């Protein structure tokens, strides 16, 4: 009797075997675990600061808040690191889910390729904002107002 890939919930192994040979999949196996370890502190820390500590100290996230926060290089580096690690970790996870659900073929290639393009575009946008944001050059009145 074969359960597993035939049912939508899937049949997970208790743990993922470590890929033995060198190659792309072995790189991603290590990347997911190492970036995951870093993200436990980076992502949970970010959420704790922005959603809990800001709340507890009676502040509110706003343009002024971001300007003062990104006035120090520490938070720019923190946010850039969080952005790169979280996006690559998440997109690779989504790729693994797609490869599990969609059989090899043109549909899978299209989905994984589209996901990759989306990831590169969003990564560039995010990095551009974190690195080059300059409050003095931001317009006082926005283009949509």
């Amino acid at each position, binding site marked *: 009797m074969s359960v597993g890939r035939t049912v939508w919930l*899937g049949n997970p192994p*208790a743990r993922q075997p470590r890929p033995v040979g060198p190659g792309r999949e072995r790189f991603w196996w290590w990347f997911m675990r190492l970036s995951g370890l870093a993200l436990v502190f980076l992502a949970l820390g970010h959420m704790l600061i922005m959603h809990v500590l800001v709340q507890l100290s009676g502040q509110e996230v706003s343009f002024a808040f971001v300007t003062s926060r990104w006035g120090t290089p520490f938070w720019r580096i923190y946010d850039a690191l969080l952005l790169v690690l979280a996006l690559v970790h998440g997109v690779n996870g989504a790729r693994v889910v797609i490869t599990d659900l969609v059989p090899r073929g043109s549909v899978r290639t299209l989905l994984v390729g589209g996901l990759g393009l989306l990831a590169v575009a969003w990564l560039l946008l995010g990095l551009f904002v974190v690195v080059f944001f300059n409050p003095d050059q*931001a317009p006082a009145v926005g283009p949509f107002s």
Partner: protein
Amino acid sequence: MTFASRLARAQARVVSYRVSWAQLAWFGHRLSGIGVLVYLFIHIVETSMVTLGPTVYDATLGLFRNLPIRLGEIVLMAALVYHSLNGLKVILLDFFPTTTAWYRPLTYGVVIATLTAMIPLSLVMLAPYAPW
């Protein structure tokens, strides 16, 4: 009829085989991961509005200041906490294979820790919308 058998009957109506804790933990890990990723894509766009100046950025943030979005943020926080703890469990099982013997208590621990952490976290996050 005990609660456990009642639960087993209810789940038999959804899938015809016995669902193990391993499956649920694994499925929850994927679901929470995809959820956080979707939010991340939205969050990057939202934050890039800061380059368009205070008027646009503060108006964008205003779109997120209501109870339904706040409830969504609490779900996001729960997803992130679960994904983090379950991810740590996966790393532990991967690098120390003997801990596989503790699979079930570890999984229970992750779920209980997530729920416990969410009590104070959701109380703080709900505070501005609470009637008290």
